[in-house]
């Protein structure tokens, strides 16, 4: 369980201080939590604060009761947090197998690595020795990114817009990946998404807007309101 208490985050820009997260209080429990809300509302910054890429300027984070606020990226990863980047990173010379091996944290066999790739819909044989560089399409990189988080198998995972760029692969497959992952880890999966079909698998939905938690609760409570709000320009990111 991840608990965020009064999380603030601001960035210093050319135009001065920009408040991005403004006193976020949130408990993310086991199961699926889908975080949604308008673009620029602070969702990705929240994911980066959780994974340690951003250091909050105020507030505390607790993972299973342990204060992890002062831990860096590596320590958070070791504590059991995984983070799938919205924009996967490219590497010259690092192969898909290398990346999956690093993620698994131990030497893994080719067939094990292939299993992770197959579960994200990639024909493993074709990819295992490819470099994670710009010769791969955005969609392929995105699936490899998801596979790297699967390989970690931690009890807490955050996915930033996992569906973006996954054009040819059906949503059903993506959702099956998340379901299988939950079966395996029995942990918490936090997904940042605008997609109705991802919102539908949520146990809880959190709406972040203007750096604050605007609404939060069980899917059945929150989702109908979001669907109604689809005409509202403030939530224009939500579409199916």
């Amino acid at each position, binding site marked *: 369980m991840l608990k965020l208490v009064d999380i603030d985050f601001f960035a210093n820009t050319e135009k001065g201080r920009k408040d991005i997260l403004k006193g976020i209080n949130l408990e993310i429990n086991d199961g699926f939590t889908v975080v949604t809300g308008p673009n620029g509302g602070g969702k990705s910054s929240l994911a980066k604060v959780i*994974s340690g890429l951003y250091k909050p300027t105020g507030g505390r984070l607790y993972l299973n009761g342990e204060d992890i606020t002062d831990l860096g*990226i590596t320590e958070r*990863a070791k504590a059991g947090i995984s983070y799938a*980047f919205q924009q996967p990173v490219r590497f010259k010379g690092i192969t898909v197998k290398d990346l999956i091996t*690093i993620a698994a944290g131990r030497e893994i066999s080719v067939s094990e690595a292939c299993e992770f790739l197959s579960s994200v819909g990639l024909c493993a044989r074709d990819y295992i020795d490819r470099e994670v560089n710009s010769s791969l399409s955005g969609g392929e990189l995105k699936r490899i990114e998801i596979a790297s988080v699967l390989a970690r198998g931690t009890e807490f995972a955050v996915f930033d817009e996992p569906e973006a760029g996954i054009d040819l692969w059906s949503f059903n497959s993506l959702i099956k990946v998340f379901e299988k992952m939950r079966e395996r880890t029995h942990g918490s999966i936090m997904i940042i998404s605008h997609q109705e079909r991802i919102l539908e698998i949520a146990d809880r939905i959190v709406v972040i807007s203007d750096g604050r938690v605007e609404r939060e609760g069980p899917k059945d409570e929150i989702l109908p309101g979001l669907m109604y709000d689809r005409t509202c320009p403030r939530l224009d990111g939500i579409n199916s």
Partner: protein
Amino acid sequence: MNIDFDMKDVAAVGRGLLDSIAGLTEIPSGAFNIRADGKSIGRASTKAVEIISKKDKPGINIIIAPGTTGETVYIPVILTEPGLQDLVYNDFYIGEAATVEIIAGCGIHNDSCTESRHDGIHTFHVGKNAHVKYVERHYGEGNGEGTNVMNPTTVVNIEKNGYMEMETTQIKGVDSTERVTRATLGEGARIVISEKIMTHGRQHATTDFKVDMNGEGSTANVVSRSVARDDSRQQFNADLRGNNRCHGHSECDAIIMDNAVVSSLPQITANSTEAELIHEAAIGKIAGEQLEKLMSLGLTEKEAEDKIIGGFLK
């Protein structure tokens, strides 16, 4: 003429160098010449590969018979005598339609306070339809103040439809290097050069390529990847000259760290309207997001850095 040779006759330091530069732990099965501290200490020719000493200057001629297939030739050089200055001329004659792999390389162990230096001038005559893979690794070690210097010059002439793949690597311990490569390509001839360099400390590396694509349909691909750490300096020069219908591509990609300096001067010259030439050059530090990604998978910053560099120079 074969020179009697036993690996046991080489001191442990030399054996370590041979392993580092050429992966040699025992006597190679095919043709070879091992040069240690300025002289040949072991040599063997085969039916298809003849190695003979030059009469007018230090060095050897390596003659590969036309139509040869499946031969690998080892010609490593090691320097363990402190402060030795070694100059060698090696000429390779690759017969028509021969396919051969040549493993060269130079290892210096220098514990002294004087400079150890190896200058190798290699000239390749690649015959029609011949196919050569040339691998060269440079490595230095030792605890003295004396510097390890290696200045390899490679001159390549490729005849009609010949092909040469050149893979050069300098990973460690070479304090100063000036690498010069000159290639002339005939009709349909192709050359692929891949260079990997890592410099650290106060090392200095200059690399200079010039390829003349004279023949119709010739192609050249020159790719250099380097990492410059600490206070080291690197200079990359490449000039691809398209003198006919040809295709040339050069790419210099460098990671810069600490207080290092990297300079890149890619040049392309078209002397024909049918020449297609491209150059790419990029210098940059390791991207922060690359470190962050690997750290988010559980690596420390140092481990992430090593993975990124290891992959880049793989």
